[in-house]
């Protein structure tokens, strides 16, 4: 195969795998930010907290990090419910969710980061499953399982979530609360209860993303910071309340980053990826899958 073509194909494939990780990281935020209009800037920090818990439990019990991340998801759901209850009581209920709510989630982010340093120290933590050192080769295409397995898990979880949101009454209520919370009351559904549930799910997804992150790279308390810009950009590019849009945007982000890194150097990757975001918003201000107001 022509070396340039091989580089291009590998750039696309590795970009799709990277996009899988981005989708895992952005899935919870697509619910909180996209559907509930809650600017949870602490989401990547919660993902890293999930990663630390995965490392501790996985190392102690000898379990696979992705399995542990699914096992701890209910605990993170409860954490999410607690955070939302606090946020609703002190900010949303008073109509002060815009700026003060943002400051609250900044605070949560710093507390999580410092809490991780206090509890686990500032050192890198890792938990490598055996498959993380295996690379499948399909002709000239490399498929490192370190990237492939978390991407597959992320796609499976997001796929199930999309089905649940479309097929169940509660799922439809979550979609509805994003559009008109007051109209939901007319259907005898408490929008606060629905938002609490949805925010709990978004934080549970942060735990799953933490497991994916541990397989891909070691984590330290501040690891979430490099994801903040990307996950918000992906949610906006995808169309806010659209999970399929979020997945498409995440994959596109990964491919653009990696193809650019392959041919023009990695220093251009963020500029080109965020340039794509601006281009998409210029032609489709509602995002790829968003509906025009």
């Amino acid at each position, binding site marked *: 195969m022509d070396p340039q073509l091989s580089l291009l194909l590998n750039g696309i494939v590795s970009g799709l795998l990277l996009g899988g990780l981005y989708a895992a990281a952005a899935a919870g935020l697509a619910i909180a930010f996209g559907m509930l209009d809650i600017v949870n800037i602490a989401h990547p920090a919660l993902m890293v907290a999930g990663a630390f818990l995965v490392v501790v439990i996985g190392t102690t019990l000898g379990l696979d990090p992705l399995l542990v991340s699914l096992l701890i998801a209910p605990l993170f759901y409860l954490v999410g419910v607690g955070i939302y209850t606090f946020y609703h009581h002190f900010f949303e209920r008073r109509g002060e969710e815009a700026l003060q709510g943002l400051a609250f989630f900044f605070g949560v982010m710093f507390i999580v980061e410092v809490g991780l340093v206090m509890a686990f120290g500032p050192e890198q933590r890792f938990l490598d499953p055996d498959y993380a050192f295996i690379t499948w080769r399909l002709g000239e295409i490399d498929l490192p399982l370190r990237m492939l397995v978390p991407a597959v898990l992320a796609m499976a979880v997001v796929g199930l979530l999309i089905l649940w949101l479309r097929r169940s009454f509660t799922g439809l209520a979550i979609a509805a609360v994003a559009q008109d919370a007051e109209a939901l009351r007319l259907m005898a559904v408490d929008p606060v209860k629905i938002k609490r549930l949805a925010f709990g799910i978004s934080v549970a997804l942060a735990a799953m993303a933490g497991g994916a992150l541990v397989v891909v*790279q070691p984590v330290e308390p501040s690891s979430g910071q490099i994801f903040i810009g*990307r996950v918000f950009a992906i949610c906006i590019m995808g169309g806010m309340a659209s999970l399929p849009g979020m997945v498409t945007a995440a994959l596109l982000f990964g491919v653009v980053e990696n193809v650019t*890194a392959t041919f023009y150097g990695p220093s251009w*990757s*963020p500029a080109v990826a965020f340039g794509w975001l601006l281009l998409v918003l210029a032609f489709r201000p509602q995002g790829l899958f968003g509906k025009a107001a």
Partner: protein
Amino acid sequence: MTRITRRDLGRLVLASGAFVSPAAMGQGANPIRIGYAMSLSGGLAANGRSSLLAHKIWQEDVNARGGILGRPVELVFYDDQTNPGTVPALYTKLIDVDKVDIVTSPYATVMIAPSMPVIMQRRMCYVSLFGAGVNEAFKYDRYFSMNVAGDDIKGTYGKGFLEVAFSLPTPPRTLSILAVDNEFAQKAAESVRHLGRQRGLRIVYDRSYPPTTVDFAPTVRAIAATRPDVVFFASYPPDSNGLLRAISELKVTAPILGGGMIGPQIAAVQAQMGPILNNLVNWDVYSPEPTMNFPGVAAFQEKYRARAVAEQVDPLGNYLQPFAYAQMQVVEQSLARVGKIDQAALATDMHANEFKTVVGDIRFSALGEWAEERNLFVQFQGIRDGDLEKYKKPGTKVILYPNNLKSGTLRTPYGAPA
């Protein structure tokens, strides 16, 4: 019953003070206060916290010996949160409000540079920790650096790496360079670029990457496509992990691979990478080889390792920790010679004298850097797993450069089985 008035209480306090011995006054009431900011949270916290442990061990050692000038030493430190924006205010507080006697620096260039204007304005004598070329721009005559890099980073940093590369039976012809977008890494890359061209190497890949990069596979693949003889990386953790994992997954080999990767010096990275580190030729500052068994370093490391796990810091202490201890030894020896806290006299003393430290004998240049650079290039050899015990003994991280500290011979290529 007689009531005690405030005046009586005052007399009582004065009277009780009169019975305190002069020695006890010196010990308890008038310590020498050394102030600094340190990254105890944020991205640099791993090295910041382990430096702090080294400083505490030094403080305990020196106080056990009766302190400095008969006065105990007290450390006054604040968390800079790895945020350069906090540093000027912290040093202003340390000097103007806390009124510390001596100031030393936070860890790393990016945190030291913003402290310099405050330090220079107050004319404080200043010993820094792992700053690279900070004083090139400031040219402050009371600045002293605890770092092996020396005055001329461009002219010397990459020298050892290329010396090792040119010791190959077949001299290399091509060089690739990848460096993270930060000051130290860019200076390191500039040095290798400059020295590589001087030696006639053709540069086939020369790019930077942003610190937010997550996946290094496309970059490593692009480098491998140019088939370089010498691969130089200047990276920081966790990027170094990402690069090494991608190199391993893509089975990249090269006669010489490594360079200025920050990460393989740290225990957590050594534990995770295991055999992936074999034959990596990398910049370093310390290795427990017989050639670096300086007086006091083994005793320091014994104390450090005994406490490191409980303090949740690097369990080995093979990187900057001995240098953090040595940083305070410089302050201690200078104060002992000068005999009083006089910033000008301390600076004059530091320029004039040699210091005996746990990282060897040190002399400072006019710019305050080490008068003789001592960039080490080490090679990881014979690693079969992530067990850290082997890193406490010689033979795992052998020194290839400089020649006076050399402890082993080059194994090549990178990517060959251990």
